């Protein structure tokens, strides 16, 4: 009996440790190929496999139809993969994300500026907004490039241009009152 047969899955669900191990063993090489095909040979592949197996391991009892093991495993793998895409595996990003400077580093209030976020948002191109939203969801630029079907360099250029446009808006806000004083 194959580890994925409904009867074998039922045994695993019923507490048969050997059946459970056979099932997890049989899943491992499929997951390895899957993750390697999706993210290449990054060191995270092993962790992705471990965590997917863990999802299967902990959620197996909740699988109502043992014939649906493939869909169950697929969802576990895809959830884990998108956790990876979104940066869950890059813990260092959360220690200090220099993409997020301190809330008021200079800061905006001390300069007396009133940040017009609505105006800044309106100034964003749809493409830049799309990229920043994906970045906010945690996807790294490399993956964003694949998702929007362009190069990483092109994605970063979009971000840089958006930032420059925003900075120009900000300078205009500062200079306008000064020009009124000397007119």
């Amino acid at each position, binding site marked *: 009996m194959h580890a994925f047969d409904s009867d074998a899955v039922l045994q695993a669900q019923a507490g048969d440790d050997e059946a459970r191990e056979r099932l997890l*063993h049989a899943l491992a090489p499929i997951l390895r190929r899957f993750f390697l095909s999706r993210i290449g040979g990054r060191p995270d592949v092993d962790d992705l496999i471990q965590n997917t197996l863990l999802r299967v391991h902990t959620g197996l009892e909740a699988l109502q139809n043992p014939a649906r093991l*493939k869909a169950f495993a697929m969802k576990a793998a895809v959830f884990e993969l998108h956790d990876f895409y979104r940066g869950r595996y890059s813990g260092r990003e959360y220690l200090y994300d220099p993409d997020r400077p301190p809330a008021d580093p*200079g800061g905006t209030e001390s300069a007396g500026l009133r940040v017009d976020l609505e105006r800044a948002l309106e100034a964003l191109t749809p493409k830049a907004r799309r990229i*920043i939203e994906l970045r906010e969801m945690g996807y790294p630029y490399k993956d964003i490039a694949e998702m929007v079907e362009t190069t990483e360099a092109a994605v970063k250029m979009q971000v840089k241009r958006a930032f420059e446009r925003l900075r120009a808006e*900000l300078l205009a806000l500062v200079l306008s009152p000064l020009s009124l004083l000397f007119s």
Partner: protein
Amino acid sequence: MNHPLYDPTLFEALAPAEQEALRRALGDDASAADALALWAALRARLGADLRHDLPDVDLLVLYAIGEDDPAALAPEEEARLIAARPSLERAIAAHPALDDVIRRVRADHAAFDALWEEEMPAQSAEPHDEMLPVRQRAADRAPERPAARRWAWRSAAAVAVVAFAAILVFILQRDAGFETYETAAGETRTVTLDDGSTVMLAASSRLLVETEDNGERRVRLAGEALFEVVPSDEPFVVETATALTTVLGTTFGVEANELETDVVLANGSVKLATRLEPEQSVRLEPGQRSRVVGGQPPEPPVRADVVETLAWTGTWYFHNAPADEVAARFSTHYGVPILLDPSLAAVRVGGAYSADRPVEESSQALAVSLGARTEGDATSGFRIVPAGR
């Protein structure tokens, strides 16, 4: 102004010293500070809007899967989607980025299904030893289940070794029948061998893998690598210029230069022998190191700092270490206090802990290995106390 601050995508690559430079620059340049503050506010606003419109990203994943294959959803997932569909569709309409995510999920789904169909006929009903490291790590994260505890126990058979070893470049270059993998300076790379074993190559390293099936598992190395070898009846041999490192199924690392082979063992058992006289060998116990210099016999094994030696892999390999030593390592790495109840401080623990994990997971994994629980959070710090308290 051409300060690198004005390329926000560069920020993600900043090293700590550069982060400090950024802080200094922000202090000296009000304009830069204003621009970056506005940028941060804009990003935060976009992020907040997204989270408001789509509080549960997993629902989007289910939505994408269900669009292609409704049968893949469990009844409760269908019910969740039905309830959330109107707000999901509003979010998708408002945020074009979500379409990109949906497309990615669909592609992932299709790739999984295709691989499943390819692999299924080849699947064996018998357990595969590739699972050994799986057990170890899964046990770190799923301790509440008896099966997971058993995985941890079995992982005691795994081995971690670092060999500072050597293989002469000309040997590497002249041998036919080997596939070559190389890394450049600053690059790491993981290679999966035919038997499922993996090799993480450190920077500026070179690995040759025998391509002919002659009943042996044998590789050659110049540089540094971490090996995770699946158990088998066939020995796994790492050849270096001065030594042969032989294991029967293990995790181990090798670093090579042209003068010596230095082996450090984190767990399990390994044999180190001179290349020219293999009968001159020593067997290492976990936590020991030995080395072969030139044609000399292996030095008697001595105690090693395995955690430091293998730290380059991004994983800490503890063997029989006092819990307070592990907690101190975590505290330093994460910058978050992780305190142990005094009754737990001297308890010996082992296992592999990824430095990339969030502090919550690492402290939880340590607590689990102690049969304890955590209190606190990543802001105030964690305290690990006996489970019954």
